[in-house]
């Protein structure tokens, strides 16, 4: 190798190293916070390049364990401000960017913006919001390719569900959250209502809850709806147990879904799959399999879940089996 070439390679390596070091030192720091930070964190951590940029994150445990510690070991040792922390508390972290749910804008985001911080707001409430917010994240951090890949994954699965041959008679489906105090239905605007319609069912409670949160329903009303299928959510323990309690409850005995044994605990791992978390796509596939079993025989929820966790969070087969599948609750296959 002649001297000029050697000198050229050496010079190239030096310049490349300088750029790499500069690039690393320019890595942006991120703080995730505010209410509903679980959804925000799960979508940000779907970008592997951003995981080390997060310098503080509000508490994300919904009571079933910390999922992101599995994705990014050391996650739990990061500073964890309270979800309701004040502007001054958050400002103390001095990150380059704050990422919050858009509902945090009036109470938290505006104050931080006034102080000169950059704040990104994510809606994360519907499939369309997910496409929009993932695009925004990709654009902001120069990770458009990853953003597009995630969106394509979602769109592929949604398209699969929507193109399934529908049953001759669409089943009447009821989604309820189980609490010790009774059963509650979600409002029309929430993703649960959307999931049932996308999967080919009739969300029988639609129109009954004009409110802004879960609303209690009486056994009498359940009887009047007389659903063919009931999907039971429980955020704090295995939803399958809640479904069994409903099956045994005399107050609901005459309901069609109880008589035919079609009461299912909503699928869950660390979090329930009915929420507008990144997992909503697993929730949609699972609902489609429950509602439309004849046309979804090829869908294996366990395999779909592995594909999702592998694609979004880089979790390999053994970690999936040992750390995630073991957490499965509700009626998964």
């Amino acid at each position, binding site marked *: 190798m002649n001297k000029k070439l050697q000198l050229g390679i050496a010079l190239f390596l030096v310049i490349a190293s300088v750029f790499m070091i500069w690039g690393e030192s320019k890595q942006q720091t991120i703080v995730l916070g505010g209410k509903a930070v679980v959804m925000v964190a799960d979508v940000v951590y779907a970008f592997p390049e951003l995981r080390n940029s997060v310098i503080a994150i509000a508490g994300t445990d919904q009571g079933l364990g910390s999922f992101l510690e599995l994705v990014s070991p050391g996650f739990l040792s990061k500073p964890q401000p309270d979800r309701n922390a004040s*502007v001054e508390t958050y400002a*103390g972290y001095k990150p380059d960017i704050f990422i919050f749910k858009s509902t945090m804008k*009036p*109470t938290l985001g*505006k104050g931080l913006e006034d102080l*000169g911080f950059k704040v990104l707001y994510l809606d994360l409430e519907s499939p369309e919001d997910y496409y929009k917010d993932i695009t925004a994240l990709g654009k902001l951090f120069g990770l458009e390719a990853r953003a597009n890949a995630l969106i394509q994954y979602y769109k592929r699965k949604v398209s699969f569900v929507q193109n399934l041959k529908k049953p001759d008679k669409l089943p009447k489906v009821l989604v309820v959250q189980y609490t010790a105090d009774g059963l509650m239905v979600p409002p029309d*605007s929430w993703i649960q209502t959307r999931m049932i319609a996308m999967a080919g069912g009739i969300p029988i409670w639609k129109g009954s809850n004009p409110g802004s949160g879960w609303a209690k329903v009486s056994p009498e009303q359940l009887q009047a709806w007389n659903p063919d299928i009931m999907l039971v959510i429980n955020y704090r323990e295995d939803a399958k147990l809640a479904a069994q309690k409903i099956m045994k409850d005399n107050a609901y005995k005459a309901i069609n879904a109880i008589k035919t044994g079609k009461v299912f605990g909503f699928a869950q791992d660390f979090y329930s799959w009915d929420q507008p978390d990144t997992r909503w796509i697993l929730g949609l596939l699972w609902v489609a399999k429950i509602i439309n079993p004849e046309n979804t025989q090829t869908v294996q929820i366990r395999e779909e879940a592995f594909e999702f966790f592998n694609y979004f969070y880089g979790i390999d087969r053994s970690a999936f089996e040992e750390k995630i599948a073991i957490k499965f609750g509700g009626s998964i296959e």
Partner: protein
Amino acid sequence: MNSTVKTNRVKLFLITCIAGVVIIALTLWGRYPKPGLLTLNDILHDELALRMFILIRVPRMVAALLLGAVLGLSGCVFQYVFANPLVDSGFLGVSQGAGLGSIIAMLAGFPFTLQIGCAFAGALLSLALSILLAKYIRFGGLILRLVLAGIAVSSVLSALISLIKFTADPLRQLPEITYWLMGGLSGVRLPMLVLPSIIAGISCLVLISLRWQIGLLALDDRAVRSLIKNPFVLRIVLLAFAVAGTAAVTAYAGIVAWAGLIVPHIARIVFGAETRSTVPASIVLGSMFMAVCDTLARSLFPIELPLGIVTALAGAASFTVLLVFIPIKVERG
């Protein structure tokens, strides 16, 4: 000028001076860069600290002083007008009316100036309804009838606010309404205070100029009629200006309870029932009370506490102490 008035003037001057020092210290107090006082070194060498001081703490302190002054003064006026130490501007549904007006303006997406107008309209409407209803109640004297009418109107307005909350969009409207209803100053910026300051300033000036007549209203009906040409008109004028001030501050601060009830009591304990001193003292003490409460709300914990909760705790505790240990000095002569 008798010696009591002279002594009260000296007391008021001293309390105002102390309040000034306390307010400066409270403005410097916070959680950034660490819990405690912001030092001169912080302000000169930390750009974020300087911005925090100018853009967050100073506007909040101005807002708190204005809020406390108006609520203290209007509470004092209400207590003398109704010769009842247990009323404040929330009485006769005024706060709820202002709250309902503001919420409707928020839902309609009106600008802040119109929100103040709606708050004012709501407050005046509730006052008018209470007075009208009192005329038709066939039980008790004027004061008792107003109390009963106020209870009915407040309940109806509270129910309407709950109904709006129940049906509000959970993503865009509900967080804003809920946060606003709990009372708070974290979203306040200086430009928002211009119009409320003008309205509240006029209200305070008029009420201070009428402080002599306010004191006479605490006498019995016959004495009032012999000393004031038209006591009914005077009462209406006083209430209208008290309501205007309350509506202006409620529009930016939300519903903040207890200040209007407790501050006039403290003023009477320090200055006696003589209104030439009690009326201005309610302004100074109200400002100080609110400055302390808001500083606690934003800096006691890493999280931001809603101001309404802090004033309720501080107010209820002080009120209990006053009722148990100190005689109340407003009563019909």
